[in-house]
């Protein structure tokens, strides 16, 4: 995983609640094993039926053509577990999402990919949204993980919380599987114990095949 330390970029405001992964990465755009992740991000909202761009969608405004930070409302990433909804962000160089809250699986998918999911409390978030709207793409914001701060135009630095464990994982870009495999012996011990006490959990056999 690519480590995350700090990221500077234009903050694009998409201030709605409950934006779901069907909207972020439509299944209809995943018709290939290797879809164009850059293009699929918000594809249906970005494009009109005739294939032209929807000029009203914030990503299509000239000042937000190359955003680095997405700013949004509550429960971002609801719905399907599809990871394309994170890969689409990274393909567009969006490495931070600032939200009022995230859906559980989406947040996990962010952490797995070095995309920083920042949660701000309601008042802090509203104040930040005002600053993002005021900046209107004219100047970038910087999100710094070691100091847990957002800095940028229109006001003082904003601090945010990130559980220590998640922070460490992002900062070091730790190999998740490697981290777990350090506990291989414990897994083997668990399996041995289970085989003795609840053997049906340790085997999944078709009883008809005997």
């Amino acid at each position, binding site marked *: 995983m690519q480590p995350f330390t700090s990221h500077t970029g234009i903050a694009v405001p998409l201030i709605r*609640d409950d934006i*779901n992964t069907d909207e972020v990465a439509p299944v209809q755009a995943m018709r290939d094993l290797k879809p164009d992740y850059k293009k699929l991000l918000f594809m249906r909202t970005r494009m009109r039926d005739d294939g032209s761009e929807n000029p009203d969608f914030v990503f299509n405004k000239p000042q937000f053509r190359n955003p680095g930070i997405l700013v949004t409302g509550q429960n971002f990433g609801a719905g399907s*577990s599809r990871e394309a909804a994170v890969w689409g962000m990274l393909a567009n160089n969006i490495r931070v999402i600032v939200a009022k809250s995230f859906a559980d699986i989406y947040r996990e998918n962010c952490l797995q990919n070095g995309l920083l999911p920042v949660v701000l409390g309601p008042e802090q978030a509203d104040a930040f949204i005002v600053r993002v709207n005021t900046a209107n793409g004219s100047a970038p914001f910087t999100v710094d993980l070691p100091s847990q701060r957002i800095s940028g135009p229109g006001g003082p630095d904003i601090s945010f919380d990130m559980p220590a464990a998640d922070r460490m994982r992002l900062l070091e870009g730790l190999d998740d599987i490697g981290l777990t495999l350090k506990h291989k012996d414990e897994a083997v011990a668990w399996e041995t114990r289970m085989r003795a006490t609840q053997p049906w959990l340790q085997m*999944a056999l078709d009883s008809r095949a005997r």
Partner: protein
Amino acid sequence: MPGTLFDKIWDAHLVARRADGRELIYIDRHMLHELHAHHAFEQLQKQQRPVRRPDLTFSAQDHTVSTQPGRHDGSFPSGAAFIKAMREGSRRNGIRLFDLDDPEQGISHVIAPELGMVLPGATHAVPDSHASTVGGLGALAFGCGTTEMTHILATQMIAMKRPKSMLIRLEGRLGSHVSAKDVALRIIAEIGSSGARGHVVEYAGSAARAMPIEQRMTLCNLNIEMGGRSGFVGPDEATFQWLAGRPYAPQGAMWDRALAIWRTLKSDDGAKFDTEHTLDCSSLEPQITWGTDPSQVLGISGRVPDPASATDGSRCAAMESALGYMGLQPGMTIAGLPVHRVFIGSCTNSRLPDLQAAADVVRGRHVAQGVVAMVVPGSTTVKRAAEAEGLDRVFRDAGFFWGESGCSMCAGGNGDRGEPGERCVSTTNRNFENRQGPKVRTHLVSPVTAAASAIAGKIADVRQLGGA
């Protein structure tokens, strides 16, 4: 200290605590599907890691498969690459695949319980958000992303922070033609689409107990629609009876040993949950979504709400946008709206009792003119059982399409979808914009409400459909 059933299952599967504070939970059964599996197979190959327990892992072809009779890999051309990659990856890694032509092919969440792979008190993972469907059997199931899936393949464990626990008590007796789908929609309406975020939900109470296992699965299926991390109904005698004799379930003396343990799987009296809710289901009428979020729900006799009644600005804006997308006005009655398409299927409502209930409504009647109506069984096993009872004839005679099993119009991953502007009454789980095709307007309902609406040609209250 009295514990919840969730605590007990979690603790029994806790292997270790990782350096980063996450807990490693052993996964007893891992089920893959072809839309996401190829990424994970590719990652494993790149990292030269083996699948740790191929014998506890299974693969299903469901998302991209055609529902047309006589289907093959290329019947839906864009699906072929996924189907082939799944076949290849499963073979290479020694994983049992339920392929396109397998007599037990079907939607992962339908076949895993049907074959008895999922067991009470066991853990289960699927790279799909509706994993908790199998919570209907008292299993603890987690939906996950592709990278997590790769992790589970390589380690047979999921690394998580312990979720919080929620108890939802469902009390009272359901009225006629009211089922788990209606109950689940009402819960989501009450709790909200992120109301269970970070929680594992235990559904309890007399109404949950009275539900047959298939309905419990419908109930648990929709758990993610309120943001829940997982959800289950504690197992009971009905669960054990349902599982007995299923091919992958323990047999003989092993079954008896398992049963003795399964009978202890209960939340203790006085166990503390982080959050509790109670819903009285006795006066519940059939439910239907009116908007573009599963929490925008009405009783079938209800009227479309007015955004002006919303408590906050962002909710008001969301309601306005939903009304616009759905082509509705505040104050309209929902029943009576003309319907273009009806879909009965998906991991929510495609098991045999769902089809039986819908067939009972349809029998001797005909789909209204101009309505395209489809039934897609959740597995080939369900399809065969339905055909043995003549249900396919009931549906076909009434003008329904009777398809081969798969996800079909639930997410449109196999090309089955509606046309722009169509109003679709559907037994699926998500009414998001464009989910069933660009600009398709989806209303989520139970199988009997879907059947009644197909017959009436408009959104209908199944209780008012006159005699055949």
